[in-house]
């Protein structure tokens, strides 16, 4: 199913199209209009392949969160198509929002159990998986704590554990670390890459941080506002695992410069 060429040319990233990984999601010509005339997204093209770590990077109002909500099937597109391939489907998603979005009345373990619970799986049956997911984010000892007892970074880890506990093949993240301090954010960036490698999922990650997008992703989709649209796609062809050394490397700096330039272009368009 990877044989046919992408329906729209993506000159910046021709190399990706010949890779052997199967396509899981294709957005073609997707528009989203709110009300009569608020164009949140116009002509969005996106091709996601299995194992990708894609960042949607752009200023606020560029439709990157809208794109994510469309993929999550929280609302229908006004025009265009979103196609799922390779056995992927929108019912098999993990999602992490900007806020930890935990249920304050439930313990950490019960919060992570939620995706199973809504599928009718008892806590006893899901306990091992819940424990494993919490161990993976380093919170195995906090099963019975309540969210209010945790720091912002820990709450976000719980949220990530909840998104991964069902081993979904695609995880959507909407600026998950934007509200955290930089030290915590760097640490969670490192941990996220390790977790992804461990679980082998595909990630679409919305951010407005150039540094975060370069560090994490293998593809950066730069978006501009008014109307929200994709203006450029950049590849970050650096091998994983990436660690602190990558953060200080010249390659990293070069990628950041390229992404910054693209972002400036996006902002300039918007002004």
């Amino acid at each position, binding site marked *: 199913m990877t044989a046919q060429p992408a329906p729209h040319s993506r000159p910046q990233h021709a190399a990706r199209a010949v890779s052997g990984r199967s396509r899981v999601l294709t957005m073609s010509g997707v528009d989203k209009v709110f009300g009569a005339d608020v164009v949140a997204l116009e002509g969005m093209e996106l091709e996601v392949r299995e194992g990708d770590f894609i960042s949607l990077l752009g200023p606020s109002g560029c439709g990157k969160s809208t794109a994510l909500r469309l993929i999550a099937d929280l609302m229908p597109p006004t025009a265009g198509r979103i196609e799922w391939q390779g056995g992927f489907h929108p019912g098999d998603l993990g999602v992490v929002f900007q806020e930890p979005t935990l249920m304050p009345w439930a313990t950490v373990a019960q919060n992570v159990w939620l995706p199973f619970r809504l599928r009718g799986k008892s806590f006893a049956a899901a306990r091992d998986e819940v424990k494993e997911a919490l161990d993976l*984010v380093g919170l195995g000892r906090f099963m019975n704590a309540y969210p209010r007892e945790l720091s912002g970074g820990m709450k976000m880890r719980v949220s990530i554990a909840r998104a991964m506990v069902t081993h979904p093949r695609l995880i959507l993240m909407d600026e998950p670390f934007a509200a955290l301090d930089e030290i915590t954010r760097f640490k969670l960036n490192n941990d996220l890459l390790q977790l992804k490698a461990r679980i082998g999922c595909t990630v679409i990650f919305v951010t407005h941080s150039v540094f975060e997008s370069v560090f994490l992703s293998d593809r950066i989709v730069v978006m501009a506002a008014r109307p929200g649209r994709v203006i450029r796609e950049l590849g970050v062809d650096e091998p994983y695992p990436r660690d602190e050394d990558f953060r200080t490397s010249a390659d990293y700096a070069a990628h950041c410069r390229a992404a910054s330039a693209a972002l400036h272009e996006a902002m300039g368009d918007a002004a």
Partner: protein
Amino acid sequence: MSIAEDARHVPDGNAPPAQIDAEEARRARTRRIERIARWTLPALVMVLAIWGWHRVVTVNEIPHYILPGPGLVWESLVNDRAMLMDAAWLTFRITFMALILAVLGGAGLAILFNQSRMLEMSFYPYAVILQVTPVVAIAPLIFIYVESKIAGMLICAWIVAFFPVLSSTTLGLNSVDHNLRDLFKIYRASRWQRLVHLQLPSALPYFLGGLRIAGGLSLIGAVVAELVAGTGGIGSGLAFRIQEAGYRLNIARMFAALSLVAAMGVFIFAALSLVSHLLLRKWHESAVKRET
């Protein structure tokens, strides 16, 4: 993957006592004094008020059929305790049943309204009308059409008490975190799952706030209903005893019965506050003591 730096945010109950500076010591002293004063000051005010009352009555030689002294009221409480306790028990039963009905009716309607917008648009205005019309004005009509005194009293008390439960629960059901709502949608939760696992827990603090108000209101409703219903068949509640003692110029008994009504109101409020605290203490900000 270590969480060492995160872990320090967890409240640690047995941290070693740090050096206490002058300001901290002063703050601790203020806290201690306030803790004691919270109970002793109101008690002191009460003792002073009763003593002042006693002085006013004895110094001015006010006749007991105009204003009895506190001693007489106490005597009445003791001597008429059998009758007053019966009356209090009846009033309490009416109040309690009305509160139960108010909770079922208020919360039930809130859930129905929440599930069907059309239903809400159709009936919410009438719930408001029922609430804003003074119950004293409705009560005589109710007793014309309702045979049973008990049922009539329950209806009166319910009319006053259900609205705070309805409006606060409605607010609570609609105050669900938007992201959590999206999350439930993404996980394909059914309407029922969303209600049980998301909306009802979110609404709980609001509901409990409404419940505390409803507790006081159902007592008011019961008292008003008794005054309107008069006696007849079912024995007499505290409000009826107050009225009756008034006709007989037994002012001491009026005060005695009144003090029982007040005590009952305080008891209901305290009991509902306790329920609220027990249900929320683990997770809700209102019930959680600040550690810092």
